[in-house]
């Protein structure tokens, strides 16, 4: 193939490759980082292939057009890339989903445990009634009162106070027990991750987004309950919602920071064994 126009051959060769890249860019969809990576790889390939053609004696334009022809139509490449992106292995998807769900469940249980510690603090700072006092109209049978008083001798015969102390203890103990279970779940989750290749079939940022959504909803709901109950003029029991709401807010904020970091994270960098310098993406 020969150049017949008055244009610079090198420019026309570059135009041919640029046109191919523009067509490919118009066809590729999905994660912008993947699209950019594919374009950079394809451009590198086409320019190296064109340079090899020129070294064999082809004109710049001829070498570029040969390189483009040898690469195949951009429609086929885009189709294959999209097909691959849609065909996530079921096993990998299930495994990744289970691992992520276990991690989120572990975080959730630990958060419940922390809310138990906050409930303990609120009970000491305010009163056990603030955390576990009964709503208006709640009464106990004489037998139940006797049980509470037997369990809580510090109540000195006050059934309502004995019930509050007992329920405050339950709120704290059950939540802390859930937190300890959460630590075990997280330890198992961390062990299961060890030694696995760093592949993740879930979209980047999905897990922190789920954490933000779950704990954000929990924070709004629990803090909302606290406010509504406090506004209604009955402060007894507010602490059980408030403790959960405060911890959910903190976890949701940590989730937002995690999500931001995850979305800003460069793709994996790697130093090959031949020691070539690597530039992080």
């Amino acid at each position, binding site marked *: 193939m020969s150049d017949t126009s008055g244009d610079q051959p090198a420019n026309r060769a570059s135009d041919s490759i640029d046109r191919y890249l523009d067509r490919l860019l118009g066809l590729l969809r999905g994660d912008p980082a993947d699209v950019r990576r594919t374009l*950079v*790889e*394809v451009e*590198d390939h086409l320019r190296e292939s064109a340079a090899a053609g020129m070294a064999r004696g082809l004109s710049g334009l001829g070498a570029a057009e040969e390189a483009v022809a040898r690469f195949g139509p951009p429609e086929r490449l885009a189709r294959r890339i999209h097909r*691959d992106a849609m065909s996530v292995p079921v096993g990998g998807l299930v495994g990744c989903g289970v691992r992520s769900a276990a991690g989120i469940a572990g975080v959730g249980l630990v958060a419940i445990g922390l809310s138990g510690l906050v409930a303990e603090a609120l009970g000491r700072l305010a009163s056990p009634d603030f955390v576990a006092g009964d709503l208006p109209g709640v009464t106990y049978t004489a037998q139940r009162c006797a049980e509470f008083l037997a369990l809580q001798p510090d109540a000195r015969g006050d059934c309502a106070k004995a019930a509050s102390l007992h329920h405050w203890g339950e709120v704290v103990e059950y939540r802390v027990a859930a937190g300890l279970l959460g630590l075990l779940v997280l330890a198992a989750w961390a062990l299961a991750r060890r030694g696995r290749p760093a592949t993740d079939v879930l979209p980047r940022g999905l897990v922190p987004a789920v954490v933000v959504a779950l704990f954000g909803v929990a924070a709004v709901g629990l803090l909302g309950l606290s406010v509504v109950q406090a506004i209604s003029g009955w402060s007894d029991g507010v602490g059980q919602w408030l403790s959960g709401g405060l911890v959910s807010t903190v976890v949701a904020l940590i989730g937002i920071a995690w999500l931001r970091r995850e979305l800003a994270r460069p793709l994996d960098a790697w130093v090959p064994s031949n020691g*070539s*310098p690597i*530039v992080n993406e």
Partner: protein
Amino acid sequence: MTSERLKGHLEPLVLAVLERQPAHGYAVILDLKERSGGVFDLPEGTVYPALHRLERAGLLRSGWAAGSTRHRRVYSLTAAGERALTEHRAQWRRFARGVQLVLAEGAP
């Protein structure tokens, strides 16, 4: 050989090429063509989806290497990739032996 006939074989071939040394996509294509004696003269674009698939499966890893004029994506086998290649080789030997035994039956 067309890329259709290579279906199911391209990934192990790519792993075998990268077993020798890390390489970028263009070098993988050239090596495939050279080592196959020109039999695997594929549309060159087909190798990139295969490289990306293998990387997603954890059999390859990659990173940007600074070239003289451009940055290029260099691929290398992971430990899981080495194990997968060993398994592919064993399967291929069994398959080729079976085909050989059947086809050679009627040979003079």
